[in-house]
């Protein structure tokens, strides 16, 4: 599947998910602050935890425990590495490297609550979709860029704490993992989500 085709399908999917009327079902819309800890290949590139990350999730419950929806996120990683030498063939370049990576997960997801609606609702969720990864190394006058659309999955464990009929907060842990390709190897990161949830009945 080409990246353009992927973009079209995703756009349609997101449009459908966000435009469905609720017809009495419970919906959850959450805005999450998401500090992210790079792991695996991502940590080899940037090893610094980022607080520049967030995501928006939307779920529509099909019954009291099971719901379906989607997530769109933005993870911005950055690390400054002084005095790093890049070697490529006979060429060597040394300087302060400014490394940037953005990860944009766009994933349809399912959520399962272990309890009936109440003040505390632990849950698990699972998302699968694409992660748009873009990397950049700036080294003085040099800049190296690479980017890739990658298939990714995202399991999550957490709990929603209902503060009132319409407002809740959530705390969860997510693990993003993508399949590697020719442009970029597999990427992974652990996200802690602290979110503000709007509940609509």
């Amino acid at each position: 599947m080409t990246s353009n085709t992927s973009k079209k399908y995703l756009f349609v999917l997101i449009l459908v998910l966000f435009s469905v009327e609720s017809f009495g079902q419970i919906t959850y819309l959450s805005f999450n602050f998401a500090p992210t800890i790079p792991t695996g290949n991502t940590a080899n590139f940037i090893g610094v935890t980022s607080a520049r990350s967030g995501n928006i999730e939307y779920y529509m419950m099909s019954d009291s425990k099971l719901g379906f929806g989607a997530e769109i996120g933005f993870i911005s990683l950055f690390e400054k590495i002084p005095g790093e030498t890049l070697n490529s063939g006979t060429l060597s370049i040394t300087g302060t490297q400014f490394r940037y990576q953005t990860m944009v997960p766009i994933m349809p997801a399912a959520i399962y609550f272990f309890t009936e609606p109440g003040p505390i609702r632990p849950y698990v969720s699972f998302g699968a979709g694409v992660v748009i990864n873009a990397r950049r190394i700036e080294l003085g006058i040099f800049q190296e860029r690479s980017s890739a659309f990658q298939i990714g999955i995202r399991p999550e464990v957490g709990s929603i704490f209902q503060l009132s009929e319409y407002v809740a907060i959530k705390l969860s842990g997510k693990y993003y993992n993508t399949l590697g390709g020719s442009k970029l190897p597999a990427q992974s990161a652990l996200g802690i989500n602290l979110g503000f949830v709007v509940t609509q009945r």
Partner: protein
Amino acid sequence: MKNYFSPIVYFLILLLANSCVPDGPDSADQLDIVYTNFDSGFNFSVPATYSMPDNVILIDRETLENPGTTPPLADFIISQAILNRIRSNMTARGFTQVSEFNDPDLIILPSIAVGDRVFFNYDWWFWGWYYPNFSPEWEWVYPGYLPSAITSVETGTVLLQMTNPKGLTSQNQIPVHWISVINGIVSGSSGDNSNRIVRAIDQAFVQSPYLTR
């Protein structure tokens, strides 16, 4: 159904996204880079002697404005800082400096690019005042590598070319076996420059371990 996506939400998302832009360089020395490249087919342990001029020249264009004259020269203090550091590194690697008239095995040509470009195939007239047996018909050749990975630089970039005066080809080409480009190092106060020049030239040799006898 409540409209979740009011203009206020979009505005907050925009503000959040704007705050997500990571930092970049916040001082000039964070833009300093040391680039080296070399001819992997040349055995650097064979040559024993080298020569270099007493001055560093300034190159602001590809051709010398008045062929046959000496090109503009760099500030004396900066020139000496560059030349002394090259000398101490070459000595540490086992090479001996000799006069250009004593048949050196290598000749190192230091120059500073004035402007935002560094010219790798500049006019040989720039070295007409120094290079032994000079001919204006000579050309540069970089055997086995392409130095032009660098296309634009900060003004004040130092270019070091290690040439082989005994390797003149039948096409009148002088081989350059090693090259270093030290980006934007000559700028600001001379005190600050000297420290940065020393660090940068040392780094050029550190990342070129093959440059030894």
